[in-house]
């Protein structure tokens, strides 16, 4: 009985993995978002470091930030799109009439997001080595895995928040994704260390998990972190945000069914 229950849940999770896989396969634009823009970002910033004739460790500092941003951006896309596509196609009520939970939805979409971001991570890492001489693997596989996992969880938080916004505000919620990522660019130390931020913004950056994951990995290439254990801080924060984001999404779904927004979005 338990195995049957487990099988059913795995199939339901796989449904959302299948959906995103089909969307990826059928929409060229989606592949653009996953591959093209991150590559352009890396190349342009990498060339900027060359123009500015930066020291190798400074190049490492910046490339770590650029690639981390791409991982978070790509990872959240698949979770966001699992709901946004349904909103844009007005098919949300058909799917929510089925006995699925947000656990199935987020897990299935996030699995595809992890695969996409891992592929892009590998490609960008290879490119950063051949083009700009920086090797991620030099820091060791375990630190790299810890860093990547933190980024993947951060992307899950962003994706879930966008889904919650979609239930509340409909198709315009994808603006939320852009906004959240933009805030991270400004505050998390993507291109510069957070110590250069004005004090009020430094306080905000301390609330963002990505800040600590970046400090952790950069500490391995010669840039000391601002706190003793940035990895623990990053994972603690991301766990809290995962719970809060999931709660926000559950509330948004409840509100959409209470107010009738769900039906309106499907007309």
């Amino acid at each position, binding site marked *: 009985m338990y195995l049957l229950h487990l099988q059913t849940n795995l199939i339901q999770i796989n*449904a959302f993995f299948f959906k995103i896989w*089909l969307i990826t396969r059928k929409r060229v634009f989606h592949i653009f978002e996953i591959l093209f823009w991150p590559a352009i970002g890396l190349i342009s910033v990498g060339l900027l470091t060359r123009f500015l004739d930066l020291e190798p460790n400074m190049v490492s500092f910046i490339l770590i930030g650029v690639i981390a941003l791409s991982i978070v951006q790509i990872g959240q896309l698949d979770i966001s799109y699992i709901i946004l596509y349904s909103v844009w196609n007005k098919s949300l009520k058909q799917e929510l*009439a089925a006995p*699925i939970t947000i656990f199935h939805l987020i897990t299935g979409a996030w699995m595809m997001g992890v695969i996409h971001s891992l592929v892009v991570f590998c490609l960008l890492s290879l490119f950063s080595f051949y083009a700009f001489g920086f090797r991620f693997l030099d820091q060791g596989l375990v630190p790299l895995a810890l860093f990547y996992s933190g980024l993947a969880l951060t992307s899950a938080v962003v994706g879930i928040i966008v889904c919650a916004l979609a239930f509340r505000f409909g198709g315009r919620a994808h603006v939320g994704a852009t906004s959240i990522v933009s805030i991270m660019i400004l505050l998390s130390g993507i291109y510069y260390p957070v110590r250069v931020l004005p004090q009020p913004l430094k306080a905000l950056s301390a609330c963002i998990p990505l800040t600590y994951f970046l400090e952790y990995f950069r500490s391995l290439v010669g840039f000391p972190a601002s706190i003793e254990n940035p990895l623990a801080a990053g994972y603690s924060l991301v766990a809290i945000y995962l719970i809060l984001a999931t709660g926000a999404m559950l509330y948004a779904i*409840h509100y959409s069914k209470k107010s*009738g927004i769900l*039906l309106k979005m499907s007309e």
Partner: protein
Amino acid sequence: MIQPAIEIHGIHKIYPATGGNPATHALKGIDLTVDHGMIFCILGPNGAGKTTLISILSGLLYPDAGTGYVGGFDLLRDRRRIRWIVNLASGQANFTDNFTVEETLTYFGMLYGLPKADRKKKADELMGFFELGSHRRIPFNQLSTGLKQRLALAKSLINDPKILFLDEPTVGLDPRVSLLIRSRLQEWHQKRGTTIILTTHQMDEAEQLSDRIAFLRDGQCVRIGGAEELKRSIQFHERITIRGRGLERAPELIGRIPGVSDIRGDRNQVMCRVDSRQKCLNSILEAVLPSGAIIEHIDITRPTLGDVFVALANQSDTDQRVLF
């Protein structure tokens, strides 16, 4: 005692105010009981609350007050369990635009936890049942309206639901496709005994398919019964039209017969309402024939469900007007 398939009491739904629009009290205390295996039709004018009611029963909308059971599960506490045993199809349904027919059914099969082999078998069975087989690789956005609706119905049966909600399943379809869909639904219902809750504006569809009908108006249930029962509950009158020659005196002669009213006529035709065809028709013929009139044709128009619809939709709470 076997619990009904659906039993609800005092269901209220108020849509909150949005923008400049005031709050809307869409359902005002609906009580309903639907037995297992029944086809139950919900009729009513636009804005009566039909879609709201179906959405609540299928778990897509939460009521603001009331209690109920769907398939034996509590409407408020067992929502996910209800979703396992129900499914729905609405008119002009939407799916992911570039998924093919087969991919759509596969996807929904997965949402209902069907293992791969069962999913494939079910999808093939439903594509055959609704004549979608030759379109299995066509994306949704390239299907005609009729095919889209057949896909929506196929999807609604993917989990062999105990209770099926159909919200205007034939809206916008041509008569041939509507007839196909109706016959398939009847066939499915006869084979599986699925309880079906149906809303429609097609009166012949309601009359053909349903065992019982509920009429909603302004968020309230004003009548429940079988089609014939509903027709009798409104004081409907049959209309008799006699065509022929020499009928000039017919109105005067017929006017003396009890149970005959609203008489209109000329030398070639006379029309009247009768309380009872059985009682009045013989009396009318006995009155008219001796006057020398020649009767060529007699029409007896029985009230239709559409007449019931119009009557109930227009009726005020205290108005029990006789129609015709």
